[in-house]
């Protein structure tokens, strides 16, 4: 029985943890942090190596660049977090940063800085061949990021319950939400637009540790309380941030990456309705994306289409694409959803194969000419909506939006729609029915929930949303071929990646698949050396996640409870009885089964 993630065990562990600096003067610690961070901050304005061979050009003295930006940002954050601890009562205006005490935040931030900067320092020596490539700045940076780590561990724990947030006027809350979301945008933008793997690794190290620290300091909790109180404003803030991403880009180089992430994330969200909300394992989900893409492509007027003379406006293409996808979903779901879940998994896997093979065979040789076979539908024209040609650059608010920028805005709208549907349906009679079916289908049916109908609904809805994404994807890539829609391949989206995004991100949540999809897309995209091993690592990640953290990185509360049901149940004696009885009722189900046979 796994114990590592049960929350009950970490508390005593934390209490007995040996403290390095017991008895040491906290002032020394604070000084070390201040000194180290200030030095690290300063070092970013120096050059870190003398050759431009290291990616990001760290040879410039005068202003920071590349990985130095991460160090700069983390150093500022560390200094800021030192605020509440510095004076008795804290430096005015900085106490908000750590409602639950700043020491754990300081530790995480200093670790983040040490990991990220230290990684660069090591990488310079590693990639360029030895410490001969170090200059004064490198030594300063490398040494100064270690000091805060030492200092932070000299400080005594100050973990306490956060004081209740002061009542603040509504407008101020909204301003804070907007500012924080925009900060998040800047951080995300930095991550997406990192130009080379060293920068991306540094970013991930920094963001990972810093994120943990902010969570431990209670700032995240406070912020989520703020967003919970201002849900509409938060929604608009996130939307505005997502839209403004495209205005931060000077070219299409990273907008095209963002487009692919958005499509991947949209489909992952759709899959999360099926897997996360309704608890149905669909292993051929990418086929519905393909159904949408093919349908839209066939009536888009591409010369490769059999129906090249049929040119429908995009809204009609999207409608038909969604309708055909839903139909496909219902056709697959109808016979199999009556059976137990395992069968569904394998039948959907088979369906994915059937789809691919069929699209391949409808080439006029192995079957009627419809899809142009393996060559696929190519030359799909760019989208046009209300006279807006997505293929041409447009100037909006003084900023030139390229082809991918146009699609980006459309995709943001689509994913917003999917999130909207996801959230509303989950928080409704239907969402409750899905949860009930997931937890105990027999009981749910006895309470009047038509299990089959609601499973079919989830399946159809999921298929339709994937189909909608597909209609856009076809136009975006301008080529639709059968081998884009396989169970597993090295590039997303494919069914295995989609499932991984949902499982790693968090089943049943909105931000989980978004995070999962972004990471699964960015990691291989940014780290070239990772390409060959990504499927292996995703496979291992699925196994490890199921073992240690089956609820995903961003867990849904109910899901977490479900996955850890047995662990927590062990603490409650009476549960034993219930488990025993349940086992016996399984026996009954079998008898029932025989009766049917």
């Amino acid at each position, binding site marked *: *029985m796994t114990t590592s993630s049960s929350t009950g065990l970490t508390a005593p562990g934390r209490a007995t943890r040996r403290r390095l600096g017991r008895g040491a003067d906290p002032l020394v610690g604070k000084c070390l942090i201040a000194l180290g961070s200030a030095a690290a901050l300063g070092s970013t304005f120096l050059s870190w190596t003398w050759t431009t061979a290291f990616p990001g050009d760290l040879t410039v003295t005068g202003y920071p660049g590349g990985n130095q930006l991460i160090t700069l940002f983390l150093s500022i954050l560390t200094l800021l977090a030192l605020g509440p601890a510095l004076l008795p009562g804290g430096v005015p205006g900085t106490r908000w940063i750590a409602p639950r005490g700043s020491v754990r935040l300081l530790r995480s931030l200093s670790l983040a800085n040490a990991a990220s900067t230290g990684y660069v320092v090591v990488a310079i020596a590693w990639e360029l061949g030895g410490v001969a490539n170090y200059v004064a700045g490198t030594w300063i940076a490398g040494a100064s990021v270690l000091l805060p780590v030492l200092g932070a561990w000299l400080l005594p724990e100050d973990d306490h319950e956060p004081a209740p947030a002061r009542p603040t006027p509504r407008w101020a809350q909204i301003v804070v939400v907007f500012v924080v979301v925009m900060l998040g945008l800047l951080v995300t933008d930095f991550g997406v637009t990192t130009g080379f793997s060293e920068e991306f690794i540094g970013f991930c190290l920094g963001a990972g540790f810093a994120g943990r620290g902010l969570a431990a300091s209670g700032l995240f909790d406070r912020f989520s309380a703020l967003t919970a109180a201002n849900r509409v404003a938060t929604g608009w803030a996130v939307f505005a941030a997502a839209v403004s991403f495209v205005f931060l880009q000077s070219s299409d180089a990273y907008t095209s990456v963002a487009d692919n992430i958005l499509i991947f994330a949209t489909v992952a969200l759709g899959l999360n309705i099926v*897997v996360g909300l309704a*608890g149905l*394992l669909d*292993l051929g989900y990418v086929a519905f994306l393909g159904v949408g893409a093919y349908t839209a492509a066939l009536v888009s007027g591409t010369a490769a289409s059999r129906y090249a003379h049929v040119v429908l406006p995009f809204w009609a293409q999207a409608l038909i694409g969604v309708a055909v996808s839903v139909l496909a979903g219902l056709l697959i779901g109808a*016979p*199999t959803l009556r*059976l*137990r*879940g*395992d*069968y569904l*998994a*394998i*039948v959907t896997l*088979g*369906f994915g*194969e*059937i789809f691919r*093979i*069929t699209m*391949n*065979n409808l080439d006029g*040789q*192995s*079957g009627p000419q419809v899809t142009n076979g393996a060559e696929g539908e190519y030359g799909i024209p760019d989208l046009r909506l209300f006279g807006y040609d997505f293929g041409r650059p447009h100037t909006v608010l003084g900023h030139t939006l390229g082809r991918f920028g146009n699609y980006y805005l459309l995709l943001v709208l689509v994913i917003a729609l999917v999130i909207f549907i996801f959230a509303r349906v989950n928080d409704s009679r239907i969402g409750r029915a899905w949860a009930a079916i997931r937890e*105990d*289908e*027999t009981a749910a049916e006895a309470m009047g929930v038509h299990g089959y109908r609601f499973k079919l609904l989830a399946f159809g809805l999921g298929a339709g949303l994937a189909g909608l994404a597909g209609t856009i994807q076809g136009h975006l890539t301008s080529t639709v071929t059968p081998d884009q829609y396989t*169970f*597993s391949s090295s590039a997303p989206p494919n069914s*295995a990646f989609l*499932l991984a995004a949902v*499982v790693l991100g968090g*089943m049943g949540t909105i931000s989980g698949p978004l995070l999962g999809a972004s990471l699964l897309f960015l990691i291989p995209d940014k780290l070239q050396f990772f390409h*060959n*091993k990504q*499927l*292996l690592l*995703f*496979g*291992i*990640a*699925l*196994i490890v996640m*199921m*073992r240690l953290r*089956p609820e995903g990185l961003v867990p849904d509360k109910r899901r977490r409870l*479900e*996955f850890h*049901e*047995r662990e927590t149940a062990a603490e409650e004696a009476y549960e034993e009885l219930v488990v025993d009885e349940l086992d016996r009722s399984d*026996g009954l*189900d*079998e008898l*029932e*089964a*025989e009766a*049917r*046979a």
Partner: protein
Amino acid sequence: MSVTVLLQLVENGLVLGAMYGLIAVGYTMVYGTIQLINFAHGEIFMLGGFGALTVYAWIPGVAHLPLFAALPLMLLGGVVVAVAAAVGAERLAYRPLRTAPRLAPLITAIGLSLALQQVVSLWYRLPGGGNAKAPVAFPSFGGKAFDLGGVLVQRADLFTVIAAAVCMAGLAWFVARTRSGRAMQATAQDPDTARLMGIDPDRMIVVAFAVGAALAAVAALTQGLRYGQISFDMGFVAGLKAFTAAVLGGIGNVRGAMLGGIVLGLAEELSSGILAHFRDTAQYGQAWADVWAFVLLILVLLLRPQGLLGERVADRA
């Protein structure tokens, strides 16, 4: 279409079906004991093939033996690798999840399947420095096929059929006559009572995984001998087909798995062979064979979800 051609198709179907059946037994046995569809079983089959190839390619001297003499060694290698992988997967991946919600072991199985494929593709090496990213050659029988009145029976076919028959007979003996076999049956029927009777269900589950893996290794050997090559991704489609066979025969039923395999093999060969034979339908032949197989699966689930020899039907949950 002459009778000879038809008989040849039947022969092909029987051989293909025997291979499906051998793999399907693994699905069925594991499902029978712990109600888990072991998605990674296709990869266990693939590992069996690579285990056998490793013995042939890497152990000095084996490649120089006549193939019939090398076969037992290769079989041993395949079985050892497949069983080790299956038992390892059970211990490390599935057992900790025995009480988890159903989705957890299923997702684990998919992860395992991806990982095992990639391990072979990334790190398997042939003596000459070749890798397994593309299909690799497998030794095969030389010599002419046996001609039975126009119906050709390949040496590999003969091996497949004999191996399948021996395996099934052995399995029947094992289940009916040995202590472990009977204990396994008991565990499958009622794990709680079996536990009360002093049977260790964990051991029985391991036995189910191991026996299934051993048979899959035999199947992998027949696959290699017949087509002259094996590849890291051959477990995916083979696993899907074998699962179809297991459902066809009635999942949980060992004899049903073999019957389902043979029915599926015959259906596949006859449908694509007959279609390929006539000019008007030739285009719907081999290219659609997999589609017909999956359509068959869906039809079976629709019309007779308990399978041909099924004893249990899907429960409601």
